[in-house]
């Protein structure tokens, strides 16, 4: 943290001040840690809920072969789901960094992505191939994301301190507003509208023939195909399929995000998040940085939903963006992020843990007791995780 900070400090005295505050904070935590045994310190570092979730997931993995669950196939599922969701989870990072809290306004970005996706189909961009269709969707979504993000950022600057609640309701409002719009906007592509009346989009639109699997199929590693083409048997490996393209796109975005956070603007963003008053004193335009972070989050949300769609194969409209918010927020928290602190590592670990749980619980549970409690467990874990993060007393929260 502290070594990231020093780029944006122009005068040595400010730098010293900053270092002092940082050091004092450090010392306190070090002191606290000394009073605990090493094991306790480790637990405190990792967090009890994360420990429980990791333990639960490990237990599921261990049990899976004994109850007759096909483990390689489940691993494929987890990798797949990771590739769908990771970009959405990444969209949380900029806003957390700039101190805007957890982005419960994710639906705003998702709506931009949906607009991009549906418009790309409407204008028939599938004639440029699956990848072209996807890129056009992204291209169309971008101006929406920028404009909505600017407005949303402006709004969040007006209400500093109450971001999360208002973000939630901005998300809900835009979803219900777009519910009307999906019915009223003059879409007429026959694959998307209701058959008879020809007004209003269908709730679920299949992407076959559009940008379905456009990223996932790029350099896809399909061991079953390899085995078939070479005429050999690869055993359990044959169940594994890796959507390389989607993972590469996520990796690219993650690296870009990491690089951005180490640029001057990026460090300024971290400074704004950890101590807005100090940032203002250091000559950073706090409002501008926050707006930038919101635009980034919104655009990543739009990108995220497009990546999700190309993996999932369907566009889901109307109230379905609602179902993405909580899992995404809790994924990054499970990864170890705080309300005002998140890293790329949190995104990756969190998405793997959360998607692992989502995939493994129903199959293992069903095989074991023929009772599908997975949804209830998922709800308890994801919302419980958010509650835990909100009730935690941590440094630097308002």
């Amino acid at each position: 943290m502290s070594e990231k900070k020093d780029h944006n400090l122009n005068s040595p005295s400010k730098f010293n001040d900053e270092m002092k505050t940082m050091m004092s904070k450090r010392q306190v935590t070090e002191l606290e840690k000394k009073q605990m045994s090493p094991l306790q310190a480790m637990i405190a570092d990792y967090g009890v809920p994360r420990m429980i979730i990791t333990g639960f997931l490990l237990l599921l993995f261990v049990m899976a072969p004994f109850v007759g669950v096909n483990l390689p196939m489940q691993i494929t599922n987890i990798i797949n789901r990771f590739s769908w969701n990771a970009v959405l989870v990444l969209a949380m990072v900029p806003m957390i960094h700039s101190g805007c809290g957890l982005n419960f306004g994710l639906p705003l970005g998702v709506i931009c992505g949906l607009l991009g996706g549906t418009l790309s189909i409407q204008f028939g961009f599938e004639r440029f191939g699956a990848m072209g269709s996807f890129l056009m969707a992204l291209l169309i979504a971008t101006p929406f994301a920028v404009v909505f993000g600017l407005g949303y950022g402006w709004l969040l600057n007006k209400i500093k301190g109450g971001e999360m609640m208002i973000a939630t309701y901005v998300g809900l409002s835009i979803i219900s507003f777009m519910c009307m719009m999906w019915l009223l906007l003059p879409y007429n592509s026959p694959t998307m509208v209701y058959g008879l009346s020809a007004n209003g989009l269908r709730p679920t639109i299949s992407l076959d023939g559009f940008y379905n699997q456009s990223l996932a199929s790029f350099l896809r590693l399909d061991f079953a195909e390899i085995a078939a083409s070479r005429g050999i048997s690869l055993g359990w490996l044959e169940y594994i399929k890796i959507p390389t393209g989607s993972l590469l796109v996520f990796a690219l975005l993650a690296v870009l995000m990491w690089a951005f956070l180490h640029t001057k603007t990026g460090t300024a963003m971290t400074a704004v998040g950890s101590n807005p008053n100090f940032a203002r004193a250091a000559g950073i335009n706090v409002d501008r940085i926050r707006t930038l972070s919101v635009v980034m989050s919104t655009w990543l949300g739009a990108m995220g939903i497009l990546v999700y769609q190309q993996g999932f194969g369907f566009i889901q409209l109307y109230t379905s963006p609602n179902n993405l918010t909580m899992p995404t927020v809790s994924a990054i928290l499970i990864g170890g992020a705080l309300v005002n602190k998140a890293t790329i590592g949190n995104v990756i670990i969190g998405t793997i843990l959360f998607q692992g749980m989502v995939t493994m619980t129903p199959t293992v549970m069903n095989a074991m007791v023929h009772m599908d409690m997975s949804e209830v467990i998922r709800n308890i874990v994801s919302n419980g995780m958010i509650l835990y993060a909100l009730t935690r007393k941590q440094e630097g929260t308002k």
Partner: protein
Amino acid sequence: MNQNNNIPLSKRAVELARNNAVPIMFIIICAIFIPMAGFTPSYLINEIITRMGRNLFLVLCLLFPIMAGMGMNFAMTLGAMGAELAIILVADWQIWGIPGVVLAMILSIPFSAILGLVCGTILNMAKGREMITGYILNFFMGNGIYQMIVLYIMGSIIPIAHASIMLPRGYGIRNTVSLLNMRQCLDDLLAIRIQGVKIPVFTFILVGLFCLFIVWFRRTKLGQDMRAVGQDMEVARAAGIKVDRTRLISIMMSTVFAGIGMVIYLQNMGNLPTYTGHAQIGMFCIAALLIGGASVDKASIGNAFLGVILFHLMFIVAPNAGGFITGDSMVGEYFRVFLSYGIITVALIMYEAKKRMNKSKAGQELAQAQKEEGAR
């Protein structure tokens, strides 16, 4: 009022309009929509009165946490869940009519009290962001714990005798529990009919008693403490008020009364949508209260009455009006949901912006005072 006398009338009117912008806007919306929807006046009045009886008690529950400065109680659905658990048990024991309703109310109290205790404790741990925590808590309990109890534990661990309310697989409760034998039994007690408009007098008496209780409660020591805590937690603590305990009590009262309100709501509806019944309650009640002119830190009984009338008037006429405008009644359906979310959003924004403005104003005043001090 006296100090306003020398301000010209037009300015005062503008001030009044600004302070009541939301109700005025909704009166205008309703005035435009009512002719479009084409309902007869007696139908409208009948519907409004029914819905007032059904919802007022629930909306009034929101006043306690506002008093204690905890904002809108998004976790009031916890009380609704407590009531639903009670109603399921009462329906299983086949106790119908007035005794059933009374038993459900009594039975809901311990459930709601426990849930309220949990909620209050958690909200005390999340001071400053009670609303978002309450909002998440309502999902945690509703989609998590409540569903677990009703879908898996009832019938397998908690004995459920009657197959009519149980899922065919042998445990868990059906999606809808019929409360036909309990339907409107409170409303029909002492009901008066005037030209086809049914007035559920007994329900209104209950609501009236609750209002009296709120008025009385505000004057008690505890009520005063709550308001002090709502004004400024630090000052209240310095004055020797147990802040956490007071906040806990306000949430518990809200939850317990929400449970009783939910029983009134359900006996009016006549059936229990087991898994979705509570989901919308919080949002609709909060939207109604805000439409009545309340803000996140200030609400009165009058706001609740006006809000319920305006909100439900809008709610009744919006689908038809939407159908009239766009030729598609689904648009109206979505429009009313949009309006209820939108109104909460606007109210929250107004509240936070005002809070920030006051803060910066206080800061400026302090700076000014210090400057004067320095000059002296």
